[in-house]
């Protein structure tokens, strides 16, 4: 699995980019402009086969536009899309090796489950005798064996989604596109379906591209997360890498929570930067120009409160504003030199507003962000 993204190249913090010859989905220079407004710009993406890819971003970020362009429903203003080495930019949805599961499943209400799933076969004029067998296989795959005769309105939300999946997988697409498929389901069902989707992807071995705004969902499902923000790719990588070493402020705040400490670069060189912050000078690995603005991001669970361990760096003394017990941790807001910090402390470290905490952090758990 390889990823090339602009931010990685600039920040130099991510995996070494490799242009792979066997890339399954290749997007180059993709952009879409509506009237003067650019919904998407400069999208570069290379995805290997068999990955579960999640396009993650807030509403209006352009992730759905990107999905729509991969599926062929929206024509790009510039750029090319190639699937399996073949340029598909000019192809309509019917001729692309993709299949889409739409947000509210788009099942044909006037047809039975069986007729719905068999629809792509009918469109390809597959022999009628052939169809029941393949439909049964597809329904089996999603765990709906025997549901063929039912009408759509008799099905629950989860069942409808499975029918939509069966129908899409029937055409054996190279890439399965899913547009916020879990949005309509309640929380409990959502978790269950997430597991089923992941298992389905493993079972079929196909590339799934899944759009969502829910970062927890992305973390559960994805082999590769692509973060889309304001029409551009902010960052792309494994859930682990994105969480531990976000490339930008947006990613640091969108994926989980962070404390952000801003400052000016006082000195830079040999792979380290020193930032002048309200909390004092902090030195950590990174690359920057002297005099530029920068940010240090620290995950709440990486704060150390109390006597400083040897391998940690002192940050400062903070005053607790409030703390909320959340079962596995205490979620604590504290203020240090006027900056609000977010910490997670172990369940036995109860604190009260007004308490003082000596905060430190291990250098490798601090992330330097230049944007």
């Amino acid at each position, binding site marked *: 699995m390889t990823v090339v993204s602009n931010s990685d190249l600039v920040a130099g913090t991510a995996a070494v980019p490799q242009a792979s010859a066997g890339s399954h989905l290749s997007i180059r220079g993709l952009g879409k402009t509506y009237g003067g407004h650019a919904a998407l710009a400069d999208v570069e993406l290379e995805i290997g086969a068999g990955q579960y890819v999640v396009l993650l971003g807030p509403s209006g970020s352009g992730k759905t536009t990107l999905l729509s362009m991969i599926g062929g429903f929206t*024509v790009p203003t510039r750029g090319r899309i190639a699937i399996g080495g073949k340029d598909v930019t*000019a192809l309509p949805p019917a001729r692309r090796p993709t299949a889409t599961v739409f947000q509210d499943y788009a099942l044909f209400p006037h047809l039975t489950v069986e007729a719905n799933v068999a629809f792509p076969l009918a469109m390809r004029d597959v022999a009628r005798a052939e169809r029941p067998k393949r439909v049964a296989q597809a329904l089996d795959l999603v765990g709906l064996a025997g549901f063929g005769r039912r009408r759509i309105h008799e099905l629950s939300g989860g069942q409808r989604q499975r029918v939509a999946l069966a129908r899409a997988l029937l055409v054996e697409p190279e890439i399965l596109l899913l547009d916020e498929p879990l949005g309509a389901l309640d929380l409990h069902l959502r978790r269950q379906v997430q597991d089923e989707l992941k298992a389905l992807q493993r079972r079929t071995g196909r590339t799934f591209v899944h759009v969502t705004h829910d970062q927890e969902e992305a973390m559960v499902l994805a082999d590769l997360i692509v973060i889309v923000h304001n029409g551009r790719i902010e960052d792309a990588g494994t859930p682990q890498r994105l969480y531990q070493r976000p490339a930008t402020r947006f990613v640091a705040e969108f994926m989980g929570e962070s404390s952000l400490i801003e400052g000016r670069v006082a000195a830079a060189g040999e792979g380290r930067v020193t930032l002048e912050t309200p909390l004092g000078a902090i030195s950590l690995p990174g690359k920057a120009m002297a005099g530029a603005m920068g940010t240090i991001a620290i995950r709440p669970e990486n704060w150390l409160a109390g006597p400083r361990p040897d391998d940690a760096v002192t940050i400062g003394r903070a005053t607790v504003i409030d703390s909320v017990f959340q079962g596995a941790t205490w979620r604590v807001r504290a203020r240090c030199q006027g900056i609000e910090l977010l910490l997670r402390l172990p369940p036995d470290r109860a604190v009260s507003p007004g308490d003082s905490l000596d905060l430190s952090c291990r250098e490798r758990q601090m992330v330097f962000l230049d944007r």
Partner: protein
Amino acid sequence: MSTATADLEAIATRRQAVRGLAFTGPAVLYTLAFFATPLAVILIASLYASDAGRLGGDPGFGNYARFFARDSLLVALTNSVRLAAITTVVSLALAYPLAYVLAFRVPARWQRLGIVLAVLPFWTSYVVRSYAWLLVLAPEGVVNGTLMALGLIDTPLRIAYSDAATVIGFVHFFVMLLTLTIFSSLVQINPRYLLAAADMGAGPWTAFFRVLLPLSLPGVVSGAFMTFVLAIGDYVTPAILGGSKSLVLPQAMFFQISRNGDFAMASAMAVVLMAVMAIAYLAAARWLRMDRV
């Protein structure tokens, strides 16, 4: 090399446009041919004079001048406007209570049945329905026959063949139409508004005038506009029930064609009729737009 991407977008946009125009085209062309053209013909014909069934003479506003000068024709116009206005007011006064009762006082189960029943006679033939009113109102009809049989009157009342009969005939039709439109409008009002009003201390009349009536106004205004416009342009009801003493504009137009063969004059009168409708539309549109804010 495959098509450049910028071209793709242009091609896709063009294809959409062509498809859209192809689907919309037939209906538009049909309307142009069989609606717009006749209207244009009327406009043009109104500027000429009718001479033994053909149009001739020099173009001008002679027909219009004659129309506004001739009392008998002008009176037809004022009759039309007057009767349409009266019809609108009376129909609203009768339809609103009925719609209100159906929307708020009738149990939900019976609402649909209630409104369907209220509108059912709509589906009798328009011509026959006016005729039915004739049966009711004529000198030898139901009302007079009953009253005479009961000994309450000696000679039949002159109800039929009058403005009153025309209005009755109109109102009967438009009460059904207005009940339907006002009912639809009332039913869409969130009942929580009324609950909130009551909660804040409004009595039933206050709640009606300050909450319900304003909210239902768009439905009322569009219904009233529809009534006025339809009533002004109607020939059948005045012709059957109105008698020949006071004519409305459509009747006058009809006689221009059937008696005088004067298509040009009839055209001019048609243009005047359309102008009146356009004015009514502008008035209603301003009202409606204000309400949408």
